[in-house]
Each structure stands twice: as structure tokens, then as C-alpha cells.
């Protein structure tokens, strides 16, 4: 009754003005009984005359409607007809203009569909919203054709439009108001007075601080300083349901109904103020504030794209002119000009050249992660005296040809892509096939796969024309994304996709895209729309299932067979699965039978043993082909809706799959039915995208010099640090791009430079003027990384196994029963190189954790090199150090007849140089002193341990 009271008090201007209101012709409750709604009679859908409806029926009267409405309408809404194509056909409709009103609702997840009247689209791409949301759509003007009028809903295949009721109005005049309420269009004088006296002061005093165009930071996307802001509402929907205070979020907030949305957050408003707000809502929220503050706020936060593209790393890549230098004799190649110019500008001089011994040790560790042998050192030192240039060229070529090169530089890439051999869910399931991707990366470096192909194959190798097995394996890059939790039905795939996008952004573009999952980027020109445009590409991609606690079996791996045999292979796997489940059922049946019946127990047990054996045999039967932990095109391909505040339960508008707007925002062509991964790779590697060459050139530089030209290799955005040598970076990047993306070519360019040849020595002037060595007036000394130290220990101890490492010795899959209570956890000892150590996503390898190994849960752009007592304890007491030292000591003792030659041998093995006279003398004295109480072998063992602990061993000059 209170509604009609207000109707009398405040007539709606628009409504009252019309003389020829439309007249209700029919109202049909599409899947329910006759009802009275808005005081008008509704017919039951299933026996309404002259109405034919297609689609399936659905009813769930338990869903809470948002916003709530009266009982009869609620009942009508919560029963519906649905399908991907629903037609409601009226016949015997009188001639003349008419209007259609349609009730739709959503019982669970957002659906997207279009609505048509007589084949003409009246509403395209409607979003049904979250559970409980409903809308009264229309009125849409229409004309019957031969007495026929068809209302149609169309969704993509497998979509579902949910239609509850339809009203057909005769005439083209305005419709009488429905009690669902509406905002007052033009407030009358009393309404304005009410607003000015009772409402505006309250909003201004208690809300504007966070909810107005003048707020420092608008909270929840809601502004309450204009009519438009109130009507639009915030991130969680309209602030007000006109006429219905109970359903209005604003009123719920001021009533402090829910802790999380209580407003004002600190102190509840006095009851009379809340009552005034309620009255205002009942009136239809009359509001004279016509300035569009929503637009003001939007304009404030909108990105100025042309300005955004001026950021240094987004600017077009052009190879810069060589800067002039004073000392024209110093540069050995173009690169040196950029370095020397900065050194000279700082008033410094480049360091002298490193000696041959330091150089070969540096170059060999740099390209292979292992030390040079004494023979290699000797040969190089001799050649270097004769022909320094050609000896260096030959050395670099020899090292680039070594298979050890890929193991070293592949590891750098595995750091960036946060490689792991387990899935990262709560039980950390093993991925026995993951090593194929690891080996693919190593091999790609060894064969110098051009970087553009390297990127394309990892993102879309399976989609390349005539894809080869190794190109499918390359997509293990995407498949390796982290898994979360233990559950299956509500598995948080959005987090796995976030992990993918985070890595794609950092690895290839040097951008922190993942920041835009919940909000536009705070610093860089990337929007939430951009995020979900890319998200759609990966949600259209089928990731393999690694198994997790509540669904332990691997599935959706990709058979490594020629493309035309894929279907056959998939069927074989399916059949195998069916057979396996049949056999397991038989085991279960017999087990239950034994429990229940006791008489023929012996026979049952014999049968059970047989069934178990059969099941086991079946499970162990090898497939006739190998499997890759790789991705494929998804079962459901399409664009996705923005997830507001990163919450999948709060879908916003659907966005077409496209590339980042700042790079042009290229859209996936309309007729494209793929996930879009191949296009994504093409967009990323487009010639006019300057980021991939800049980012990769910087990574290559970083791993030669220990620090990047851009000190933040995964962040070329505003939060990153600027380049120390921007022109050098562009020179390298342009060279990289224009010379066919050859990584080995870049090694040559860098390693044949004068810059790379400098010694690590720093003079007083350099220490004074450039303590951090930003201008590279000498080569930066650096600590060996964890892998190089361990590999050297094994190599010098004669234990290093260089044969192919292959898969890890994981337990057989049939035995997997990992849970979060008993997660998979293992450390496999191996004498293979450290790049082949089994890496768990959520348990750090104990050795790698001590020595700053890569973080297996997120991209590691550069290794740290901390110095901790735990590392020293490792060198003092770890069994590996002691064992390999002993083995090396035994080798050395055997290698020479006297301690002088042995000491020389030890120095050459560990430090790639002979000892000087003083060093040889003190080492000999140490052997005598230690030998005083020890057998000779033990004394040597002790000496080798000492040498391994030295700074000279773990630091590269």
C-alpha cells in the first residue's frame, strides 16, 4: 500500500503526461501457473492460447533474487524456458503498433545472448549476470506480421538464455509503471526540497570523501555526487533499486547489514538519517544533480594512449647512430662505442684487458657453466699471445658448439618461465612428462632456434601448419602454469590463467600484465579490458590436468603422433580409460562381495587377486605413443567477460580477444574460430612491437655481465628502473631483430667486444666516481651460480654424468595417492648437471635454496647472490663437498709425482691458472703442516677443500 501512497504524492511526470497509454494484450508466465502481477492477470504458459514456446523448462524457487521483488513476480521469474535458441510465437495478434516486454533471469553463471523481435535484434549480447539477477527488458516497439509476432533469444551454442515471462502491449503509448520501480526523471519542487534538506547534506558529509568526483580515490567505483552516479552505481551494481529500500545496496550499507559493506564504515548513521534515505529511495530517488560526475571520474582515469606510447620502452625501435668517442683505438666493434662513450663522459678510463687465463675461465663459465680444462687453458693462452682476435673467435665458436651451452643458457630461460617438474597444487603432483619441455628449451638454444620461432612455438607450436611433435612439446610452456588447491568442481582456473598471463607478460614483454586482473594498471597503460581480452585466449585453451588431491589422474595430455593420427590416439586413450575403470569396478565389486558374504570367501578372494592383477597389468601396459604435457585448443572457445575486481563470480561486459591496446589492440578476426594463440604470438613478435627485442637483448646482456642494461629485466614499465645505456639497448635490440633473431649471433657480438675483454680491476678514480660500476669501466666480478658450483664440484671430482638425463625417477602413476596431508615430496640425487635436478613447484630443493637458485613459483629474471653463513656451513661440512674434494684429491695425487706439480695441477683445475711462487710455497707448507698429523692423502683432501672454499673459486674475474 505504501507504494500507491507515494504514487498519489509524487506522480511520475512522464507517465502522467501521456494520454494514450498502451494497453496490455497478453502477459504469459512462460513456465508456470496463472498469476496476478502489478494487478494484471498473467496466463499460464503451457496452456496459453495462440502462444507457442520452444526451449526446455527450468524452475528453481530457492534462488534469492537480486533485487528482491514481490512474491508473485518472484514466482514467475524463477520458473522459465531456456536454451541456446528460444522462440515465443504469438499468433492472432491484432494489427497496429505493439510493444514487447520480456523478463529474463539468471540462476547460476553469467550467460550471453541476443534478443530479437520478428527477426530484428532488439538487444545484442545481453549479459545475464550472476545468480539471482533478473531484468524486465523492453518495451520494444514491434508490428505483427500476418498476426504473428515472434520473440527470440539466441545464445552461442551451449549457451543458455533463461526467459521467464513476456508482456505484449497494444499501442505505441507509454506503458503504465510496473511496480519494479523507476528513478524519478524530473523531480518536482517538493522532491527537490526534500533532497536538498535531507539527502544532499548527508551524502556530502558522510559519503563524498570516497564517493565523489572530488574524492582522492573513488572507492568501489561508486560516486554519489550526481544523479548519474547514483543510477549507475558501483562495481557491485546499482546503488539503489528505486522504490525498494530493502533491495537497495545503499540502504543495506547504511543499515550495516553486512560487515564488509557497512557504510560509513566506522560509525553507523543515526536512525532518522537512515529513515530519510529510505524515504528517498521509496520516492524513486529524485535527484536534481545533473552534472555527469561519472564521466568526470572516467575522464580522469582514462588513459591518454598517444601519451602512453611515448614511454621509452614503447617507442619504436630504431638503431641509434654510434656515439663519438675520444679513444678511437679502443672499440673492437660497434657495441664498444656505446660503452666507451659513457665511460669517457664520466671522466673514467676503461680497465685494461683481462689476461688470457681470466678470460677463458670467464668465457667458459659464461657459455657452458663449467670450468675450462687445464689443456684448454694452455692451448688458449698460447694462441692468445700469437693472435688475440682469432683465438677469442675460435674459443667462442668452440663453446657455442658445445652441447653444454644449451644446458647453461636453457637454464637462464627456465628461470624466466619458472620451470618446475611438479604442478604446484596443494599436493604438488609430479609431471613425469615435463622434462620434454626442459629438453626442448636446451635443444632450442643449442640449435640456435631463432627467437621469434622460439616464442611462437611456446605459445602456439601445436597450431603451426603441420606441427611436429617437438613444436607441440614447446607449448609445455603454457601447460607448466601453476595449479592451485585440492578441489575439482570449483578449481580456480582463473588463477592458473593469471599465472600464465603473468609469465607471458614478464617473459616476452617485460610487463606486469597480471596487475590488471582486478583493476586497470596503476602505473602502466594496460587495462582490465586488455587483461580479459588476453584471458579469453587462454580460457579457450585446453590445459592438461596434472592430477590433484580430489582427482588424481592425469588427463588431457597430448599424444606425440603425427597430426592425422591424433584422433586415433585420443580414442585409444579413451578406450584405455574405459577399460581401466571397468577393471577397477570389478575389483571394487569383489571387495564389497567379500565384505558382505562369508561363505564362498576363498573363491571370491581368488577372483579378487585375479582382478587386481588384471587391473595392474592393464595400468602398466605402455601406450604405443609418448605423451606431452602440452596444451591444445579448448573444448569451449570464445571471448570472456571481465571479472570485476578479479572475481569470476562478478562478470562484467564481454571483451573481444585482442592484443594490448597500447600496441594497437589488434582484434582476433571475426571469422577466427581458434583460441587465438597463434595470433597472440604474431602480435607479440610483430616487427613494430619494440618490447620483445629490447627485453630479450637485455636478458642476454644480463647473463653475460651479471646485470642488465635495464636493471629490472621483467619490468620495462613505469615501476621498473630505466636503462643505464638506452642507446646500447636499442642498438642490441635492433641488431637482434634485424639479423634474424639469432641468439648465438648476439653472443658473438657481445663476446668479441672490447667491453667483454676488460679485466675486473677497478682503479681509485672508478671506485670514487662510479662505486656501483654503472658505466662498466671494468668487467663486473660475479659469483658462480648454484648450478655452476655444483657442476664444477662434480666435474672436478670426476663424477659428472653428461649422458642424456631423461625423465625423473617419479613413482609409477598407479601408485599416486598424494594429498595435502601427504604431498609429493622428493629429492632425487643425481650426477647429471644441475639443470636436470628435479625441481618442485612448492618445495625448494635444499641445495638450490641455500645458493639463491631460481624461485620455482614465479619468474626469476636475475639470480640474486647472497652471502650467508649457511652457505659457508655448506662449504665447511656438506657431504658433497667432502666427497668430491676427496675424489679430486685422489686424482691430483695420482696425476703427479711431487707436490709441486700437483699443486700446479690443482690451481689449473680450480682457477684456470698456475700458482705463483708464493702460493705454491704456502700450499706446500700447508701440506707439510697438515701432513704432520695426517696421512698424505688426507692432507691433500684437506688442501682441496680449502681451495674449493676460496673466493677465487666461487668468483669469476
Amino acid at each position, binding site marked *: 500500500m505504501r507504494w500507491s501512497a507515494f504514487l498519489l504524492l509524487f506522480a511520475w511526470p512522464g507517465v502522467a503526461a501521456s494520454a494514450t497509454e498502451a494497453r496490455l494484450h497478453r502477459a504469459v508466465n512462460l513456465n508456470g501457473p496463472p498469476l496476478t502481477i502489478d494487478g494484471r492477470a498473467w496466463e499460464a504458459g503451457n496452456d496459453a492460447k495462440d502462444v507457442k514456446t520452444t526451449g526446455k523448462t527450468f524452475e528453481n524457487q530457492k534462488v534469492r533474487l537480486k533485487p528482491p521483488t514481490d512474491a508473485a513476480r518472484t514466482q514467475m521469474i524463477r520458473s522459465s524456458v531456456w536454451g541456446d535458441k528460444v522462440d515465443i510465437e504469438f499468433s492472432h495478434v491484432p494489427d497496429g503498433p505493439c510493444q514487447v516486454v520480456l523478463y529474463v533471469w539468471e540462476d547460476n553463471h553469467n550467460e550471453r545472448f541476443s534478443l530479437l523481435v520478428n527477426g530484428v535484434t532488439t538487444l545484442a549480447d545481453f549479459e545475464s549476470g550472476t545468480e539471482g539477477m533478473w531484468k524486465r527488458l523492453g518495451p520494444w516497439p514491434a508490428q505483427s506480421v500476418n498476426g504473428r509476432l515472434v520473440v527470440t533469444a539466441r545464445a552461442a551454442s551451449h549457451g543458455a538464455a533463461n526467459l521467464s515471462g513476456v508482456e505484449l502491449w497494444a499501442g505505441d503509448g507509454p506503458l503504465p509503471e510496473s511496480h519494479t520501480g523507476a528513478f524519478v526523471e524530473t523531480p518536482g519542487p517538493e522532491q527537490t526540497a526534500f533532497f536538498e534538506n535531507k539527502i544532499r547534506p548527508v551524502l556530502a558529509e558522510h559519503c563524498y570523501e570516497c564517493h565523489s568526483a572530488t574524492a582522492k580515490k573513488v572507492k568501489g567505483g561508486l560516486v554519489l555526487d550526481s544523479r548519474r552516479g547514483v543510477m549507475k552505481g558501483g562495481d557491485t551494481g546499482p546503488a539503489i533499486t528505486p522504490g525498494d529500500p530493502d533491495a537497495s545496496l545503499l540502504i543495506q550499507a547504511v543499515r550495516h547489514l553486512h*560487515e564488509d559493506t557497512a557504510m560509513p564504515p566506522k560509525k553507523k548513521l543515526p536512525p532518522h538519517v537512515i529513515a530519510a534515505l529510505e524515504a528517498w529511495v521509496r520516492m524513486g530517488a529524485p535527484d536534481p544533480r545533473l552534472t555527469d560526475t561519472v564521466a568526470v571520474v572516467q575522464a580522469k582515469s582514462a588513459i591518454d594512449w598517444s601519451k602512453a606510447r611515448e614511454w621509452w620502452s614503447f617507442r619504436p625501435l630504431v638503431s641509434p647512430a654510434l656515439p663519438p668517442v675520444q679513444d678511437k683505438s679502443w672499440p673492437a666493434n660497434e657495441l664498444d662505442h656505446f660503452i666507451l662513450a659513457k665511460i669517457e663522459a664520466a671522466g673514467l678510463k676503461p680497465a685494461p684487458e683481462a689476461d688470457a687465463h681470466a678470460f677463458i675461465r670467464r668465457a667458459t663459465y659464461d657459455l657452458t657453466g663449467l670450468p675450462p680444462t687445464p689443456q684448454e687453458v694452455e692451448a688458449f693462452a698460447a694462441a692468445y699471445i700469437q693472435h688475440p682476435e682469432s683465438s677469442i673467435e675460435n674459443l667462442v665458436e668452440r663453446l657455442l658448439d658445445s652441447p653444454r651451452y644449451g644446458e647453461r643458457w636453457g637454464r637462464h630461460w627456465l628461470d624466466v618461465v619458472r620451470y618446475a617438474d611438479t604442478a604446484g597444487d*596443494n599436493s*604438488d603432483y609430479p609431471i613425469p612428462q615435463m622434462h620434454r619441455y626442459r629438453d626442448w628449451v636446451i635443444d632450442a638454444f643449442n640449435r640456435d632456434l631463432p627467437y621469434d620461432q622460439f616464442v611462437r612455438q611456446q605459445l602456439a607450436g601445436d597450431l603451426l601448419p603441420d606441427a611436429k611433435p617437438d613444436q607441440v612439446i614447446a607449448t609445455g610452456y603454457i601447460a607448466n602454469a601453476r595449479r592451485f588447491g*585440492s*578441489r575439482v568442481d570449483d578449481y*580456480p582456473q582463473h*588463477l592458473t590463467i593469471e599465472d600464465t598471463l603473468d609469465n607471458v607478460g*614478464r617473459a616476452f614483454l617485460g610487463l*606486469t600484465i597480471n*596487475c590488471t586482473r582486478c583493476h586497470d594498471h596503476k*602505473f602502466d597503460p594496460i587495462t582490465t579490458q586488455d587483461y580479459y581480452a588476453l584471458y579469453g585466449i587462454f580460457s579457450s585453451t585446453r590445459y592438461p590436468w596434472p592430477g590433484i588431491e580430489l582427482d588424481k589422474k592425469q588427463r588431457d595430455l597430448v599424444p606425440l603422433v603425427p597430426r592425422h593420427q591424433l584422433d586415433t590416439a585420443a580414442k585409444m586413450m579413451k578406450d584405455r580409460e574405459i577399460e581401466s575403470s571397468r577393471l577397477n569396478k570389478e575389483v571394487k565389486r569383489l571387495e564389497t562381495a567379500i565384505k558382505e558374504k562369508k561363505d564362498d570367501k576363498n573363491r571370491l578372494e581368488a577372483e579378487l587377486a585375479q582382478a587386481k592383477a588384471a587391473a595392474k597389468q592393464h595400468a602398466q601396459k605402455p601406450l604405443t605413443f609418448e605423451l606431452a604435457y602440452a596444451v591444445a585448443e579448448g573444448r569451449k572457445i570464445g571471448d570472456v567477460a571481465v571479472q570485476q575486481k578479479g572475481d569470476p563470480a562478478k562478470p562484467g561486459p564481454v571483451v573481444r580477444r585482442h592484443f594490448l591496446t597500447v600496441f594497437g589492440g589488434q582484434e582476433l578476426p571475426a571469422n577466427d574460430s581458434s583460441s587465438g594463440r597463434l595470433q597472440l604470438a604474431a602480435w607479440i613478435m610483430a616487427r613494430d612491437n619494440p618490447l620483445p627485442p629490447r627485453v630479450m637483448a637485455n636478458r642476454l646482456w644480463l647473463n653475460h655481465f651479471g646485470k642488465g642494461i635495464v636493471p*629490472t629485466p*621483467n*619490468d620495462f614499465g613505469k615501476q621498473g628502473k630505466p636503462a643505464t645505456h638506452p642507446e646500447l639497448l636499442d642498438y642490441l635490440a635492433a641488431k637482434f631483430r634485424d639479423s634474424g633473431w639469432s641468439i648465438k649471433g648476439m653472443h658473438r657480438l657481445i663476446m668479441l667486444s672490447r667491453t667483454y675483454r676488460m679485466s*675486473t*680491476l*677497478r682503479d681509485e678514480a672508478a671506485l670514487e666516481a662510479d662505486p656501483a660500476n654503472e658505466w662498466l669501466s671494468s668487467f663486473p*666480478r660475479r659469483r658462480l651460480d648454484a648450478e655452476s658450483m655444483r657442476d664444477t664440484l662434480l666435474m672436478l671430482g670426476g663424477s659428472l654424468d653428461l649422458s642424456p638425463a631423461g625423465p625423473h625417477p617419479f613413482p609409477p602413476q598407479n601408485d599416486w595417492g598424494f594429498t*595435502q*596431508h*601427504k604431498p609429493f*615430496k622428493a629429492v632425487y640425487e643425481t650426477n647429471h648437471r644441475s639443470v636436470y635436478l628435479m625441481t618442485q613447484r*612448492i618445495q*625448494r630443493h635444499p641445495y638450490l*635454496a641455500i645458493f639463491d637458485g631460481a*624461485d620455482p*613459483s*614465479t*619468474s626469476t629474471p636475475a639470480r*640474486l*647472490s*647472497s*652471502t*650467508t*653463513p*649457511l652457505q*659457508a*656451513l*655448506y*662449504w*665447511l*661440512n*656438506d*657431504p658433497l663437498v*667432502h666427497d668430491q674434494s676427496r675424489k679430486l684429491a685422489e686424482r691430483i695425487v695420482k696425476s703427479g709425482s711431487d707436490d709441486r706439480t700437483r699443486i700446479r695441477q690443482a690451481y689449473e683445475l680450480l682457477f684456470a691458472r698456475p700458482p705463483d711462487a*708464493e*702460493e705454491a710455497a*704456502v700450499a706446500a707448507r*700447508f701440506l707439510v*703442516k697438515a701432513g704432520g*698429523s*695426517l696421512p698424505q692423502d688426507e692432507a691433500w683432501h*684437506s688442501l682441496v*677443500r*680449502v681451495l674449493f*672454499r*676460496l*673466493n*677465487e673459486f666461487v*668468483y669469476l674475474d
Partner: protein
Amino acid sequence: MRSLVGASTLMPGLLSQLLAEDGNDPLAPKQPHFTAKASRVIFIFSNGGVSHMDTFDHKPELFKADGKMTGVGGGLSNQQRVLLKPGWQFRPGGQCGTLVSDLFPHLRELMDDICVIRSMKGDDNEHYNATLGLHTGSFFFSRPSIGSWISYGLGTTNSNLPSFVALAPQMPYAGTQIFNNDFLPAYHQGVRVIGGKQPVANLDRRTQQKGLQEMELEFADLLNNRHLRSRAGDSNLAARIRSFETAFHMQTEARDIFAIDQESDATLSLYGLKRGQTEGFGWQCLVARRMAERGVRFIELVDGSSSDNWDQHADMAEHAKHAKNIDQPVAGLLRDLNQRGMLQDTLVVWTTEFGRTPGVDGTKGRGHHSACFSSWMAGGGVKGGHVHGSTDEIGATVAEGKVHVHDFHATILHLLGFDHEKLTYRHGGRDFRLTDVFGNVVGELIA
């Protein structure tokens, strides 16, 4: 042995000069943002989900409603289940009379020192995620542990010991992530102590001959200093030389921590320990006190493992066994800290990853319940004898004074003198903090 490096005859004073000039020893003691109430933390984590209504949150209505009504319960779900009454009687403890169940008779006597929080709340009903969240503030992604944050913020006063130690004989849920430094530098990694004869990896000398290790170190020192002479100015080299000295002392000093035979019979019995015992929760508690004395900043005690813990889905009676295991040792630790005058600046925290459901799971168990649970704090500037917050009549939801895990963290940091919004670390283009973008200090807990 200290002469080994400090007074090196080859380069007198160079090392210390280099290290002093460098000025960025990551573990040097640092001042927090404001005057701290506590200068170290002992963090006791009972793994598996301790039932609040059976321990620290008295629910008389739940006793009455046993089996008659339905409430939240069961497994991982929030479905309605028949209510299960608490299995133990509650009695008042101390002058303050805080009600505690018969599961913790020893702790109950100390309620005047303890501030119980009955309104804790987490975000996830899975052990793994709840455990991760409680340690890192992040329920899904790996982030630095609270101990690493505190090490990063405060450094250490004893450079011969790590700043953050996890006494974890068994691994809890989420594994090493709970004491991982993640993106913070490795100095702030929690060092795991497993107990037994080899409590820390590589702590025991592998060279048995007397004086041999000293001789090796002295020789290495000589060569390292010679190497350094021609590379003057490289503080990394100097720092690494010093790390060997520290490691050398750690072998002795850390061993000394574990030499609990030095303790009196009275002290051992306070913790319920027998002489010669090198395992058990009493051992963990006593070692924690000895570490606190020697300047370790953050000491975590892990109670239980991911497979044997307080997760009583089948039979709540099992709680008795787990409570008995920690009640006397923890009470002993509080008494011992108190009698040594250490409790006032040592914050002792006890918590679990979530509570349990008021509804029954199976026939006699309870399910996971992150909507509310109980924790407590003592010493270090918290209000003893106080109870903060409450749950509804059956312990299903927080009724007042909600303390979300982020608020819990913000309060701990506050007691150590930190503004939780300002203790940040730049990583991957963003300033990270323990409390992410959340957290309010709960002033009511602070004395």
C-alpha cells in the same frame, strides 16, 4: 679463532673497514618505525585446525543443543549438520577467570598472562591454503613468511645465529613455503631445525681431527686476503670471508643452544622433559627459549605435521592427545620466560590455521572452519587476562571484534614497532607487504 679474520696480519683492518663502509649488512640490527613493545617472537603453530569450541571458546548453548539442532558442519563443506556438543568442560583460570577447557589445564593457570582472541577469521577452508595464509598473508600464492618479514625489518643482534628459525621436526601443510623468504633476500630464510642428534643440516663438523678445520680456515683466510688485496673495494669478497667466520662460530654456538643438559632439573621438569631428551614439543619449547636468549628474532614452533595433527574429522577425542602434547611444554615456556624477565619483551603467539565446525562430521568429528577460530598471545606488550572478540551462540561465525588473519599480522608487526603499511619490499614492479592491501591493528589486544 676470532683473530683468524679480524686481525689478519696480511690486511689489518681492511675487512672490517670494507664491511663498515659498505653499510648494508642485511642482518645488522635495525630500528623499527616506532618504539616496540616486543623485540622477538615465539610463534607456536598447531597444525590441522584446533577446535575453538573445545578449547578456548566456551559455548554453553552448544552443550545444550547437542544433536538437536542443525548448524554449519562437515568436511570441507558448509552444509547443515546436526550439532555436536564440546567434549570437555570449561573452567575459569587465573584471577581474570578466563574460561578454558580441560584440554589445557596447565595453560589455564596462566590466563592472567594470556590474551585470548575468540574472533579469528581466515579466508580458506583448506589446510594448505589456510596454513599458507596464516604464515604469509597470501592464501594461494607463495610470499615471504612473517618470520622473514620480521628478520628483514629488524635484522639480528647475534650475527653468529640466523635471525629466523623454524623448529619443525615434521613439515606442516604447504611445506617449506611457511618459512620461506620468497622474494626477500636469502638472509631472511627461516633455518629449519628438525631436532634429534643432527638438528640442523651441515652444523656438525665433518672433519674430526682436532684443530684441522681451524687450520683449513686459517689457510683459506690467508689466501682469501691475498686475493682481496688486489681486488680492493669489493665488499662482497670481504663479506664472504666473514661468513666463514660466522659459520665457524655457529658450529659452536648453535650446538650450545641444543646442549639443554646445561639446564637444571627444575627447568627441565617445567617443560616436562627428561634429561637427555632431544625430541618432543618440550624440547622444541626449551630450545626456543634458549634461542630467544641468544638473540634469534623469530622462532616458530611447528606442532604436528601435515599427516598427524589436530585434524579430527573422525573423532574429536583425539584432540586430548594433541593437547596433552603441548599443554605443559607451552605453559612451561611461559613460566620460564616470565621467571627470567623475558616475557615482557618476548611476544608468544599461539595459533592454528582454522577452527572446527559446530556441526558433526562423521559421527564424532568436526570439519574445517575458517569462519571463526581462537588464537592467543602472551607477553610482548599484549593485555594479559583479557579476552577479545566473540562468536555466535554455537561458534559458527564471528559475532564481534573480528580479527582477520591480516589484522592478526598487522597487530604482531605493531607490537614489534612496525607500521604494517610501511614495512614494504619492492618486487616485480610493486611494493609488497605482509598484509597485502588489508589489515587493521587490533588496539584492544595491546596493554
